[in-house]
């Protein structure tokens, strides 16, 4: 495998990490109005992701930096082209991030409700827009000869991309609800499982449509294989949730999201930003990548440090493996 190909898959892996991890905390954020009957419930929900949302979000920063360093042309085209969509994602991530830290700073219920709403909106907007963005990348966008995006914000909102956005929104929502069922106990756990059943049915219908469209319109052999894995895992996770196998449901949902992301990247390869107007203007791993020297340096760094990062992040999840209940919240509040 040559270095640009390796880095294409490293970028894919970073996005797998990002969507699998931040995906479930987006889902928990979106589930607040559905699963949190009162303030204590909502604190239980937020505490399930409290120790990890920040490290989950870091994956997108590293993914962005990896694209910048490994595929500067792709980074430039993508980020300037999707300007307003990324602006919305940034604003959502900002208000969501500070809300986690600020909601518990004052005792008034109105104060907390305001930040709960910001967490929900701040989770839903990126969950939807990341799907829109990735569907557009796979589908291709109009590019000029200098690889600059020539469309508008509204040309990004086409049917395939909107379906992609809805798919990620629902996948992350269900992923989050499964996570709540896995991490809590008592009343909330039961509510999460019931909501998981309904959410999974809707998710299966929408995701099936999107995956089928992707395979039929842009499918490669590898992409189709990943889409099939995603479909099987998605149905498996719904069955596991129905049977009360919470760990299995969550793990299979993680597999679903990982396989779906890999299906999109496989459909894309070897392009990174196909031009919908003229294939000659497309960005590929060959014409978008950095020099061999830069990629070599980065490969060594990633080879040494990614396993270390994975190890200490896994340890974090292990440290906070216990279920959280209302009793914890009451005890800690004295």
């Amino acid at each position: 495998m040559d270095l640009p190909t390796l880095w294409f898959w490293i970028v894919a892996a970073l996005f797998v990490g990002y969507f699998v991890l931040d995906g479930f905390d987006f889902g928990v954020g979106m589930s607040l109005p559905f699963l949190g009957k009162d303030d204590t419930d909502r604190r239980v929900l937020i505490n399930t992701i409290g120790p990890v949302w920040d490290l989950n979000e870091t994956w997108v920063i590293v993914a962005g930096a990896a694209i910048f360093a490994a595929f500067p042309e792709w980074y430039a085209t993508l980020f300037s082209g999707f300007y307003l969509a990324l602006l919305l994602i940034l604003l959502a991530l900002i208000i969501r991030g500070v809300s986690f830290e600020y909601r518990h700073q004052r005792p008034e219920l109105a104060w907390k409700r305001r930040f709960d709403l910001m967490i929900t909106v701040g989770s839903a907007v990126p969950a939807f827009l990341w799907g829109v963005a990735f569907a557009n990348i796979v589908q291709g966008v109009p590019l000029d000869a200098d690889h600059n995006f020539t469309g508008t914000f509204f040309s990004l909102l086409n049917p395939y991309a909107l379906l992609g956005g809805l798919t990620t929104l629902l996948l992350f929502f269900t992923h989050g609800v499964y996570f709540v069922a896995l991490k809590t106990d008592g009343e909330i756990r039961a509510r999460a499982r019931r909501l998981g059943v309904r959410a999974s049915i809707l998710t299966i219908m929408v995701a099936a449509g999107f995956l089928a469209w992707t395979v039929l319109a842009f499918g490669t052999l590898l992409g189709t294989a990943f889409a099939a894995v995603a479909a099987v895992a998605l149905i498996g996770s719904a069955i596991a949730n129905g049977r009360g196998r919470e760990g299995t449901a969550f793990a299979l949902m993680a597999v679903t999201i990982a396989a779906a992301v890999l299906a999109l990247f496989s459909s894309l390869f070897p392009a990174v930003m196909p031009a919908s107007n003229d294939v000659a203007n497309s960005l590929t791993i060959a014409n978008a990548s950095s020099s061999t020297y830069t990629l070599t340096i980065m490969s060594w760094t990633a080879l040494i440090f990614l396993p270390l990062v994975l190890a200490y992040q896994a340890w974090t999840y292990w440290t906070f493996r216990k279920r959280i209940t209302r009793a914890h919240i009451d005890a800690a509040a004295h």
Partner: protein
Amino acid sequence: MEDLLDPLALSRWQFGLTTIYHFLFVPITIGMASVVAVYQTMWVRTGKIVYLQLVHFLGKIFLINFAMGVVTGIVQEFQFGMNWSNYSRFVGDVFGAPLALEGLLAFFLEATFIGLWIFGWDKLPPKLHLVTIWAVAVGTILSAYFIIAANAFMQNPVGYTINEAKGRAELVDIGAVLTNPVALAAFPHTILAAFMVTAGVMIAVAAWHLKRNQNIETMRPTLKFGLWLMVGAFAGTALSGDQLSLVMVDTQPMKMAAAEAMYNTSTGADASFSIFTLGTPDGVHELFSIRIPYLLSFLSTHTFDGTVEGINDLQAQYVQLYGPGDYTPVIWVTYWAFRWMIGLGAAHALVAVVGLWLTRKGRTPTAKWVWTIAIWASPMSLLAMSVGWVFTEMGRQPWIVFSLMKTSDAVSPNVSGLEVLISIIAFTIVYGILAVVEFRLILKTAQKGPEPIELEGDDPEDPAAKPIVRATVY
């Protein structure tokens, strides 16, 4: 209307605004992480409850800040691609590497261990829990190093070659990029300045409580720590700043000339340092000036008879080298930013020296106005740091990468002025609201003071009794 929607001007404003705003939170994050880690180390070693109270108290102020630093930092990374795509295409091969290294080596570390620190109090053994806050502290400092190395490439490009076929700069020596003389001087300068900002917060908070004669057992040590930290960090900031000026004269003589608004090349006594000058912006007429002879020569070359090049000569040289154009930054901005940076930083350190004298040998001033000054002095280091960055970045103009690419060539060609305007308005509103919320929260937390910590068991004097330490509950 056309001027209002100029993508270049708007993108520059956006970068300036979001960067200065981001950098209001970064110094406190960098400095406070280490201060909290030091207090927690003292707690683990001595078991004195005062230290644990301070860890919780300063830790809370730290966390309110940390969240803002993180979320505004994502904007910084994204806007290189969003607003400056031509820049990203041109330097991504070189500039992207330190950013990716920051993410892998520093950012993951900070973000993971901050969660372990906040929620790990009752889940990890004390010594292991202590490691988590040190990991955060190391992460913040590493993070700053990589970002400064990236920035240093813009000030003084090294370790690259130009690939004509691809029309871009390519990395040939990562070691050179990471040991860029500008980075090696700017890194300690920035970190130590961040410690000054942190010390300012500690002094102000302690002074507020001591003025009211409350929480003396926790606030007096905080005050002393803050005062010593301020004085020590200032000494380091000044020394590294001196190193940085030497490097700057070497690599960006125009920036030094602009810092002095010195139009003509001068030697020895003529190369005087102006403390204060009133004149016309073009430097033709000088109305009033206070100058110290030889000082500029000494600062720039470390000799009294050194020659310092003036703006006019440099401009002529640059026209020869790079073709026709205006190669001078906005002189009044660089001139005043340079002075305010040094002046505010030194003034804050002076306040701390006086504070050390007034509180020597266990004394505590009783006059309220002494404390009032200490409280109101607290923004000075932060302002010094902000104008320091304004100086660094404005002094680089018109270059985005000195001698290689102009800022005007770096902007995204396909992003409209309207889009940038929308994003400036959105950031201004959101950042503005958050600034007010954050400031009030910090003020409220600081004024509430350290909270008492209960001890398990009957005898509070019993050193074996373990205090109840709870995880933060959201």
